[in-house]
């Protein structure tokens, strides 16, 4: 029986000097280009007031997500919505990209074995850790924007030793959030890819169908969880103690 090609780290398709450009980065790039093109088309049809069903569909999605954001942060939803919706859409479409036909199957062979040309965007720890670092960094930015320099007093509170220790724990927990965000997303999506590969080996052709449905659901839920958790941390950072 042929052996499965499961590699926990995304395989590089080419190198720019020392920088390895992996297949997941390629798919994330394509996802970003796809989302940008959809946004540009929406804007053009919106401005010229031409009728378009795709615009109505996109408006339904964006407006229902905006109402969802409003249930968590009722007053400042418009400030945080661009970041939260971008994280949600990027994570969702990058995770769903791993389910398209041709992903993880079309590739080339070189000295390191079989290198697939495409791999799910969020199935690479680099992409998820980058998104997590960006999200946690934006939490600090929003905290500084609304509270000023007093925001950082949360971490370095010299009034008494207990508060100093609690502030240090808060600092550590910010970094723990980066790890938790990235591994939650990476673990879910990568485990889904492994599951699909194994099921395809065991029950070819029709076996993976219910599992692809499961992966669609998981991709949506993980995108929702990532963006909602970022929003909750932003609302905690922005509120006065």
């Amino acid at each position, binding site marked *: 029986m042929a052996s499965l090609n499961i590699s*926990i780290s995304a395989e590089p398709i080419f190198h720019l000097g020392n920088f390895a450009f992996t297949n997941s980065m390629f798919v994330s790039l394509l996802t970003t280009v796809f989302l940008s093109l959809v946004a540009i088309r929406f804007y053009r049809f919106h401005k010229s007031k031409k009728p378009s069903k795709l615009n109505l569909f996109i408006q339904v999605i964006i407006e229902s997500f905006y109402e969802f954001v409003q249930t*968590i942060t009722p007053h400042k939803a418009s400030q945080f919505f661009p970041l939260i919706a971008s994280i949600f859409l990027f994570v969702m479409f990058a995770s769903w990209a791993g389910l398209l036909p041709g992903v993880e199957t079309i590739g080339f062979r070189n000295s390191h074995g079989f290198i697939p040309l495409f791999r799910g965007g969020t199935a690479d720890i680099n992409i998820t850790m980058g998104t997590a670092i960006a999200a946690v960094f934006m939490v600090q930015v929003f905290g500084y924007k609304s509270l000023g320099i007093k925001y950082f007093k949360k971490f370095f509170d010299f009034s008494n030793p207990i508060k100093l220790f609690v502030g240090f724990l808060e600092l550590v927990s910010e970094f723990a959030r980066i790890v938790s965000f990235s*591994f939650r997303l990476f*673990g*879910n999506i990568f*485990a889904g890819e492994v599951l699909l590969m194994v099921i395809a080996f065991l029950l070819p052709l029709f076996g993976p169908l219910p599992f692809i449905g499961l992966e669609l659901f998981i991709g949506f839920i993980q995108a929702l*969880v990532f963006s*909602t*958790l970022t929003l909750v941390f932003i609302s905690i950072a922005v509120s006065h103690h």
Partner: protein
Amino acid sequence: MINDNLIVGLTITVGSLAPAIAIGMIVSKALEAIGRNPEAASKVQTVMILGVAFAEAIAIYALVVALILKFV
């Protein structure tokens, strides 16, 4: 007897016990809260999904360790 595959299997098995119990407890408390106050159902549901995501992340850490042990 105790070979590598056994350790990998045990990692994910034992690592999923606590999250499974945690998720069960979270959802049961959420259901209780909804039953007591059906008007707050959507708020309770949002917080429940968040709590379940945190608990599930622990199981995912165990899964990632098992995958690293198996494939690296």
